[in-house]
């Protein structure tokens, strides 16, 4: 399956792109997708533990099962206000 990964805030600077796409096996999890992104962009590995992960507009845990065409967002801690 194919998923889109969007980067926000300074993650865009680190990856030098706003989004990428991933080819993943069926039943892949969000955590597995995150690991695949880090393999592609090793600089994000330093922020792995503080990275927030969403699918669509909802936060999801690493165990979340992805579907084809899902849109993942990866970003640093939020800072509104």
């Amino acid at each position: 399956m194919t998923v889109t990964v969007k980067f926000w805030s300074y993650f865009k600077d680190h990856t030098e792109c706003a989004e990428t796409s991933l080819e993943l096996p069926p039943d892949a999890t969000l955590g597995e997708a995150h690991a695949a992104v880090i393999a592609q962009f090793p600089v994000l590995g330093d922020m792995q533990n503080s990275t927030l992960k969403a699918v669509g507009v909802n936060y999801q845990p690493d165990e979340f099962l992805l579907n084809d065409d899902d849109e993942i967002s990866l970003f640093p801690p939020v800072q509104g206000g």
Partner: protein
Amino acid sequence: MKTQLTLTPDPIDERALIAEREMTVGMGAALIFHGVVRAQEGEATIAAIDYEAFDDMACHQFELIFEEIDRQWPIESVRVVHRVGVVPVNEPSLWLELIAPHRAEAFQACQFLINEMKQRVPIWKRPVLPSA
């Protein structure tokens, strides 16, 4: 509970917001909070903050926070304005208004809203230095 959320690049027009206020006769507290950009960001003196939002998710997360407020307190209305883009020092980046029967629930809900926003609403800031 009535809710209104605005993410905008424009300066916050408080006079217009207050003119639009709707408050029934049973309400005794109208609480307004301004979050204002400070000149100090850590060790640095800055000129502004550049806010970036993931708009769709930010709106959804604010809606979830509003739902939690509605479950916990008898708030009549919540209005939130958060700026995006460059906000100069000493200008508000955040404007909140809560209408409630009494001040206690208005203050509690206000604190809750801001704390939750800072935990989960996807908005980020970048300091803008005076020379930029």
